[in-house]
């Protein structure tokens, strides 16, 4: 695999995506940072936005803006239609679910919290078990830690293998008849590991447990089909997939959503309100109290279209090739320790590494002085850091506008970092 990649011409073009061409659609990539062109490798934290998305926001606010769902005037009708069009698009994008199964939140974090506070509150009791993994982001960890504490439930976790995969043989032992929920990330935001959603879901369902998948790192980078995978809940964020900030999605199976109590309450999510009681609205409105991030949702549609035009298979192909190239080149720096699976087919383009004598924060600061944006820290996965025996890592994460030139710049800067610190 690596050999193949080495033999192809070093260019920003992969067989998947022409990143040079893509770059032209992202105005921020023209920025000069500390005298260097911006090399943005912090995509796991948040992605950049194409002109199409920025323009969609402007268009919304200059042509359409109004509150939705209740207005009878033209702007309100147009805004409502645009908002619901994104819902319909999202439903298609994740495998063709019902529109009533797509709930807009303000992010993956809120989507997971919604499930913990409603489904979790009513379905997890004392002595019940929640199974997570050792590689969870705090967003898919803290809500379950706290739910388990509140309910005197037991939090179990699937351990990792030394090469950064889930230890799958352990799973059948860890899922018991007390397991109510298996919650895991589709792709790790630290290791890049892609987890076998369908297989884990089948195992969980066999034991009668529900499945929640944190797709924050997967939907932006892989073709995702929640129907095929059979999951019960799936959460992700717009801002990591070329869309605006403040928009997230919770997919939930209708059968479960119907039975769940609402989360936030107020306008829009009710049918009838009296001082002494409330009747709730139908799905998905039951879970969308108050005025949502209308402009954000409307512009998210443009992000979905942009990704579809590239093709999610091509996006994935591009990242497999670029990740392979990056993993390969990182071996040129002696002593540098790279985390996660070595096979680009088993992982996404999130590459965490440490340099034994230089703290990740220093690496990040030095790289920034060369215009290279990476992240350093615990990446909201402190327990995983402990498992890995690290306090922090540096993390470069790739997306459609990254090419080999970006990786080359990264490698060169890492070498210069050592020189700078005299190591």
């Amino acid at each position, binding site marked *: 695999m690596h050999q193949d990649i080495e033999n192809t011409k070093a260019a920003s073009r992969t067989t998947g995506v022409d990143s040079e061409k893509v770059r032209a659609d992202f105005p921020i990539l023209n920025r000069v940072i*500390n005298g260097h062109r911006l090399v943005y490798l912090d995509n796991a934290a948040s992605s950049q936005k194409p002109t199409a998305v920025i323009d969609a926001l402007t268009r919304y606010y200059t042509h359409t803006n109004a509150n939705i769902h209740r207005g009878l005037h033209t702007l309100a009708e147009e805004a409502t239609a645009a908002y619901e069009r994104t819902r319909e698009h999202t439903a298609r994008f994740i495998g063709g679910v019902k529109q009533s199964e797509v709930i807009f939140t303000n992010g993956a974090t809120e989507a997971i919290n919604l499930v913990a506070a409603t489904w979790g509150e009513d379905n997890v009791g004392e002595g019940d078990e929640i199974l997570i993994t050792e590689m969870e982001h705090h967003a898919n960890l803290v809500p379950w830690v706290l739910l388990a504490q509140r309910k005197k439930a037991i939090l179990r976790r699937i351990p990792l293998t030394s090469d950064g995969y889930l230890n799958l043989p352990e799973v059948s032992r860890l899922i018991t008849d007390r397991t109510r929920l298996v919650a895991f990330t589709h792709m790790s935001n630290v290791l890049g590991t892609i987890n076998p959603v369908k297989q884990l879901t089948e195992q969980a369902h066999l034991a009668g447990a529900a499945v929640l998948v944190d797709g924050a790192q997967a939907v932006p980078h892989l073709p995702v089909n929640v129907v095929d995978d059979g999951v019960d809940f799936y959460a992700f964020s717009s801002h990591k997939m070329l869309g605006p900030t403040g928009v997230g999605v919770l997919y939930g199976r209708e059968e479960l959503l119907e039975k769940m109590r609402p989360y936030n309450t107020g306008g829009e999510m009710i049918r009838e309100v009296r001082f002494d009681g409330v009747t709730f609205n139908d799905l998905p409105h039951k879970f969308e109290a108050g005025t949502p991030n209308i402009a954000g949702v409307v512009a998210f549609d443009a992000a979905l279209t942009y990704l579809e035009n590239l093709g999610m298979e091509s996006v994935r192909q591009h990242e497999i090739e670029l990740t392979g190239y990056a993993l390969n080149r990182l071996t040129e720096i002696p002593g540098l320790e790279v985390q996660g699976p070595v096979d680009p087919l088993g992982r996404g383009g999130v590459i965490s590494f440490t340099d034994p004598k230089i703290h990740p924060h220093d690496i990040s600061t030095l790289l920034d002085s060369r215009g290279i944006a990476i992240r350093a820290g615990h990446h909201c996965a402190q327990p995983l850091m402990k498992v890995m025996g690290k306090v922090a890592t540096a993390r470069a994460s790739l997306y459609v506008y990254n090419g080999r030139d970006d990786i080359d710049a990264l490698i060169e800067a890492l070498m210069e970092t050592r020189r700078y610190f005299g190591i």
Partner: protein
Amino acid sequence: MNDRLDDMYREIILDHFRSPRGKKPIAKVDISSDGQNPSCGDEIELEATMDHGMLKDIHVDCRGCAISVASGSMLAEYLKGKSLEEAKRIAEVVRQLLKGEEAEIPEEYEDLDALKGVRNFPVRIKCALLAWVTLIEGLKNYEDGTVDGKVVVTTEDKE
């Protein structure tokens, strides 16, 4: 690579980072305090031997970025042999310096001026502060004995 950067990683800082002072364990531990900034992963262990109101010996073990390591190392070097009062005064000067307040650095500590470059990197100020805040809390505890055993300190979101 650029000026702002070189102003933070001055030669003095890099020198302390490469060969941190105060690494050697000390025989008698009168003061013991741990500092940690979980969000960056900086961790510092600070111990000191007291003798007639003096910090006779200081041990600092810091795992963290160059700034936190250098800052802890400077503390170990410059406060060794100093009185409690002097230590507190200097810690306060460092705090002021990092906060961008008017701060007069006594001549014998002029190397501490090198920490000033950190001010241009607001997220790193907590790294530079960590050792000093850890010391202050350790001293406080030594004086009032309120906490039994180690104090644990953070400068995270407290800057």
